[in-house]
């Protein structure tokens, strides 16, 4: 008996440094991540900042009832899903096509050159990019409308017109991410066994048939995996992007859940209502993320840890 206790004690002593190492991040994550998670309870409270989290009264689901009786919430949910689905679709297709096209090039130097140019926007913030787009897309002075004007097209108010705004958001999001998004597919393409192409060629397949029968099946599982993993973003319209480019004129088609929550919470100080809206988004997203991770594991043995 004494011996096992002694051994346990030795083991704990040996593990002790590991506990000490992990304590700082444990405490910070506990306070800032779990503290915030605990904070979602204010979605069920008649919250007042003065009374705080523990002093405010619980009122059940009435914040949610109020939230879903706001006329704008349904527009916001519809906008969010529309914009995010288009972004998800384009965010898969364009990088895949780009990777396929780039993969046809043989010169390493040329390939590298194209990659260097298209990866750049990925690393810049939406603040800088919003500044660039506000300048070039301006109907009165931007270069895009200058060029369109020379071709006889009337000026288009890309960021102020409720028809064009969501389209501009989808296109600029894909523009920012497609280059870097293609990295994963390029690495998938290089791992296809060259013997398969040789075999196809011996069988008389031309380049197009090789693409259809060797290349595409070769990256199909990767495309499926990336599609599944992007599912968790279904309620992410892209706060960083939209908040920096939208205006009241395009709320009808461009206001998304995150921007709605921000205005409600930070600008109007409706903390409980905004938290309820945020919790609604988080809960649905969690569901999608869990399903997508499960599918990714089944499909491709993908695990985050």
């Amino acid at each position, binding site marked *: 008996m004494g011996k096992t206790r002694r051994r346990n004690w030795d*083991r704990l002593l040996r*593990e002790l440094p*590991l506990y000490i*190492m*992990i304590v700082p*991040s*444990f405490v*910070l*994550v506990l306070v*800032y*991540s779990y*503290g*915030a*998670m*605990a*904070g*979602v309870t204010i979605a069920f409270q008649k919250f007042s900042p003065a009374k705080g989290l523990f002093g405010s009264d619980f009122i059940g689901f009435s914040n949610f009832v109020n939230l879903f009786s706001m006329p704008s919430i349904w527009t916001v949910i519809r906008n969010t899903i529309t914009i995010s689905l288009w972004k998800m679709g384009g965010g898969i297709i364009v990088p895949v096509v*780009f990777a396929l*096209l780039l993969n*046809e*090039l043989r010169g390493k130097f040329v390939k590298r050159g*194209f990659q260097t*140019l298209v*990866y*750049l*926007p990925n*690393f810049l*913030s939406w*603040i*800088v990019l919003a*500044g*660039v787009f506000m*300048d*070039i897309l301006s109907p009165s002075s931007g*270069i895009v409308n*200058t060029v369109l004007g020379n071709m006889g097209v009337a000026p288009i108010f890309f960021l102020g017109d409720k028809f064009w705004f969501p389209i501009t958001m989808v296109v600029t999001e894909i*523009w920012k991410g497609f280059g870097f998004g293609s*990295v*994963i597919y390029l*690495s998938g393409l290089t791992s296809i066994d*060259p013997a398969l*192409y040789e075999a196809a060629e011996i069988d008389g397949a031309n*380049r197009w048939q090789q693409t259809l029968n060797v290349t595409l099946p070769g990256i199909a599982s990767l495309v499926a995996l990336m599609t599944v*993993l992007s599912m968790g973003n279904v309620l992410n319209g892209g*706060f*960083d992007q939209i908040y*920096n480019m939208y205006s009241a004129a395009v709320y009808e088609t461009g206001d998304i859940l*995150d921007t709605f*929550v921000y205005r409600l*919470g*930070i600008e109007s100080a409706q903390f409980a209502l*905004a938290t309820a809206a*945020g*919790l609604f*988004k*988080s809960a649905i997203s*969690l569901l999608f993320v*869990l399903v997508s991770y499960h599918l990714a594991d089944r499909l491709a043995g993908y695990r*985050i*840890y």
Partner: protein
Amino acid sequence: MKIKTSTSRKVFMAFNYLILTTLSLLCILPFINVLAISFSDKIAVTERRVGFWPVGFNTAAYSFILSQPAFLRSLLISLERTAIGVVVNLILIILTAYPLSKTKSEFRARGFFSWFYVVTILFSPGLIPGYLVVYYTGLMNSIWALILPGALPVFSMLVVMNYIRGLPKELEEAAYIDGANHVQTLIKVILPLCAPTLATVTLFSFVGHWNSWYDGMMYMSTVDKYPLQTYLRTVIINPESFFRNVTNVSSNLAVYLGLVNARTTSAAQLFLAMIPIMLAYPFLQKHFTTGLVLGSVKG
């Protein structure tokens, strides 16, 4: 593999080059236009004569911006939060990844801690609760509000953890037999081997901190505490009002005002904010690629 260069192949390749060139130009021309505007004369800009080359080349917009305390102040705040933030991130990544890289028998609480961190990736409580925690922990208007809430980047930590697990187990066993404790093993054996993956996560953190803007907007109550990206937002949202509120009346101001306007100065500031990313760009390309493949394929 030999490629037959049939006519159809040649036509395809011509189109392929055309498409790839168009896409590349679409990615880069917006920046070149803005760069050209920043170096152009304000009259040429107003008359919409500036394309991809400066018209009436001058550097007045830059001298003007660099004489403005607002820009320099937010630049310093950004440099400070990036420097402190990256160091804090890196230390916490190492101190968390090492214990979690142990097997269950070496570190019995491993299962609990793994879930503890992974849950934070799966569920985000949203904007307002995060804001309130920062408020109640008294960090409002402090630079630590930009650092502590994201002090441990969990995804980066998992990348490093997986890397350590991929190292040959014999190294640690040899260190253990030689009587090294965990701290010695970590510093003398593991860390030197982790240099490539640590470079990757350092760059993740650098880009994250440099580009971050919305924490500045939420947690700082006055513009003079804004980091650069947050400050830039006030400029791009309303360039004219920024331009009218210029406070520094230096002797050169009148000269500058003859040459620059809201658009050229905004363009100059956007470009200045891009410079650190451009400087790191060669490394970013290399390390973000390996990081991406590490994170998603191997997992």
